[in-house]
């Protein structure tokens, strides 16, 4: 109803609305679904939230790979709960994105036809049980650093979804660290397995924060809109500082010969990041891109009859009820 009004607005009014919109953002008033918002804000948010949702859904695949092979019943229960949470996170985020006026099916279609992206980290394989630990510790650890500021972002439904997600992510990170701790303090073979996982997941995790600020075109506008509160490099630094210390406590070695502590800045400094690898994986040439997407396409196609049957059942019962009334 409201959008039909904004469809017909002339330019002068749009400027006025945009000024009022920016002024409200400056006062930290949240934007809610039916409020007027600039089209570019809506589009950028939709891209950000839906890609985040896709990442949660695709992110179930690498870990789901180990549910049937978890080393104990307790580990299996924990992993099941964790993967179920990831599905939940995807659903909270799809709901938040839908409030921007795009149907769920449209978003799913964008994922399945490669129009939308998901986090490139999930295009790496989980070769050993230690990878499940490394994902929880590093990947979810990086996600928390990314997501905690977003609980204060300007779009109400996104911020609220983030609050729920962050509460659950800390369980994810701790269970991952717990797996790493047990392995790192286990037999020499288990320790080596943990070290190997850290070596394979370290750089992709560091890349999760996205391109360096110097090459990140959306940063400035998104920060103005308060849908990004810290830059990629700021968040990455935070991750490095806290994770290097945790690796030391685990007795594992971060795979970076140039890693050093800078006493003056009180930060760790790392060697160069292989951005070519990052862009190669994003463009579709990571180790598992095809497999991941195919798994989503198959799940969607093979679930079609279930979705249709549920609708047919609901319609049949609705007719019965209305004829009985």
């Amino acid at each position: 109803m409201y959008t039909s009004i904004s469809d017909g607005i002339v330019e002068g009014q749009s400027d006025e609305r945009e000024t009022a919109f920016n002024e409200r953002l400056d006062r930290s008033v949240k934007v809610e679904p039916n409020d007027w918002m600039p089209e570019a804000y809506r589009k950028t948010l939709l891209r950000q939230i839906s890609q985040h949702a896709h990442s949660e859904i695709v992110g179930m695949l690498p870990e789901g790979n180990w549910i049937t092979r978890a080393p104990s019943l307790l580990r299996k229960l924990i992993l099941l709960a964790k993967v179920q949470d990831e599905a939940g996170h995807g659903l909270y985020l799809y709901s938040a994105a839908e409030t921007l006026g795009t149907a769920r099916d449209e978003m799913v279609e964008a994922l399945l036809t490669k129009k939308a992206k998901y986090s490139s980290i999930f295009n790496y394989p989980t070769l050993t049980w230690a990878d499940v630990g490394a994902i929880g510790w590093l990947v979810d650890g990086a996600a928390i650093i990314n997501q905690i500021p977003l609980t204060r972002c300007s779009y109400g439904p996104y911020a609220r979804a983030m609050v729920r997600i962050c509460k659950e992510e800390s369980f994810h990170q701790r269970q991952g660290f717990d797996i790493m701790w047990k392995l790192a303090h286990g037999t020499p073979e288990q320790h080596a397995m943990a070290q190997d996982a850290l070596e394979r997941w370290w750089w992709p995790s560091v890349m999760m924060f996205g391109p360096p600020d110097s090459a990140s075109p959306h940063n400035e506008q998104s920060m103005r809109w308060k849908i990004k509160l810290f830059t990629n490099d700021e968040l990455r630094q935070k991750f490095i500082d806290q994770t290097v210390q945790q690796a030391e406590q685990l007795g594992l070695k971060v795979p970076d010969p140039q890693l050093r502590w800078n006493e003056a800045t009180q930060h760790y400094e790392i060697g160069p990041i292989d951005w070519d690898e990052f862009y190669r994986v994003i463009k579709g040439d990571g180790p598992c891109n095809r497999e991941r997407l195919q798994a989503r396409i198959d799940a969607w196609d093979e679930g079609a009859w279930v979705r249709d049957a549920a609708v047919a059942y609901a319609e049949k019962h609705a007719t019965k009820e209305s004829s009985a009334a």
Partner: protein
Amino acid sequence: MKNEWPLWEIFVRSENGLAHKHVGSLHAADAEMAVQNARDLYTRRNEGVSIWVVRSSDIVATDPSQREALFEPSEDKAYRHATFYQVPDGVKHL
């Protein structure tokens, strides 16, 4: 893609004594499935003791462009609040 399941808004009572509160939305083919999905999606960690589901299309809301007309008139009626009145020194239980 056809047959998208309708959208439902989910309200959860976190404990007896508190009102149901909106927690988010989800898709489900019918009300029964909406309740089951809401239970799985929004109460995995003791968040609730009761759930309401309402079809999103059944919710009637105020128009944000009417916000000022609807809600601003109450802003200048400070006398509706107890804090508007000065309590003379020494007067108790007021």
